[in-house]
């Protein structure tokens, strides 16, 4: 547990801010808190800033059921670039970033990129009904962290939180709060991570999550 609070406390290298992001931020604050105003106002643009961890942290392995009841482990995606997104249906920014995750997954899924949506504390039935209401139905795997053990393992404090894991199994980017993952800057980061993995004889290794199975 302590090892992976590193992910949330690690020193980060900021990327430059833009006026556009600030504008989007302000619009978001005005228009979409807690879904209270969502029905009445158009959805503003989300920001796209991801923060690189100065010291990458080896991702802890885990196993969770997907929406079909099939168990999936992080190690099943060994050698891929993984976007690990922690979310819940009651969280408005989580809902808003789903289409952008689906878009980037559709475009880059065949290049060795995968999105894993880790739902917190909700049942597959509830989530399936919710997904039917979305304008874009997510085709990436949705996993069910029913007891929030995996989010604890990764030191997640709030939803949504998104991590990017490179081909070597290291958490290298982090974002707290909603984002537009379909933005060219995010795509460029994913492309770079996909390329980085092709340069040498890197091996993927995830940290054993045994301590959390006791």
């Amino acid at each position, binding site marked *: 547990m302590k090892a992976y609070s590193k992910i949330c*406390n690690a020193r980060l290298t*900021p990327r430059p801010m833009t006026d556009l992001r600030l504008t989007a931020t302000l619009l978001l*604050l005005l228009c979409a808190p*807690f879904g*209270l*105003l969502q029905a009445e106002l158009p959805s503003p643009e989300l920001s796209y800033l991801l923060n690189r961890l100065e010291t990458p942290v080896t991702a802890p392995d885990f196993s969770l059921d997907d929406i079909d009841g099939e168990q999936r482990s992080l190690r099943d995606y060994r050698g891929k670039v993984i976007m690990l997104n922690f979310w819940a249906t009651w969280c408005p920014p989580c809902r808003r970033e789903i289409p952008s995750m689906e878009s980037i997954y559709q475009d880059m899924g065949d290049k060795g990129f995968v999105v894993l949506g880790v739902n917190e*504390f909700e049942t597959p039935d509830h989530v399936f009904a919710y997904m039917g209401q979305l304008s874009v139905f997510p085709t990436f795997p949705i996993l069910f962290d029913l007891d929030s053990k995996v989010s604890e393992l990764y030191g997640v404090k709030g939803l949504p939180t998104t991590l990017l894991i490179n081909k070597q199994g290291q958490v290298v980017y982090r*974002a707290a*709060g909603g984002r537009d993952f379909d933005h060219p800057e995010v795509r460029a980061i994913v492309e770079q991570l996909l390329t980085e993995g092709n340069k040498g004889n890197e091996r993927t290794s995830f940290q054993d999550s045994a301590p959390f199975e006791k």
Partner: protein
Amino acid sequence: MKYLTRHAGTTLFILLLATAGPLPQSHAAVETVTDESSGLLSWKAQHPGFSLQFIQLLPDYVRAVYGARGLPKEVVDLMASYCIFGTIIKNESGESLGYRVADWRYITADGQSHPIKTKTQWLQEWQDMGVAFRWSLLPDDQQFAPGDWSQGFTTLPLSPGTTFKLSYQWTQQDKTHEGIFEDLQCAPDTPPDD
């Protein structure tokens, strides 16, 4: 002289306190907005690189949120008995920024200052009531990278419609800042338009 020598440590400490002074008050542009459809209020403090927003939530909304999570009625009613605000914190600076709810205080009309019940305190209480849910509440403390933001509920044991002040702190570039909302108000028991 003997007295001064004997009490030099205390005197020095008092002098240090006097010269240290209070935390820098960061003046914010506070915007109060009334939602046209619900009539509920929200307040947003905009500081350079940091913003904090408090949004009134009706007790029925709180009941709906926790009821939909399948929490026991006892827990749902307890939460709805609190004055709850949706709270949004954003790092709009190019630097790291952090906050701790334990540093925040609300000040009631009698001038008394009170700590805010933290998420950790709630989780302990929920655990004692057999609930494992750990979401929806504003995290106790967070360190934000540029572009990061968070939302969650802030809970106060106040009656519907109560007005109060709220003093908050955050750390930016290793410097602690303080701001204050002068006139926050708990949501009414029923929608204002009813």
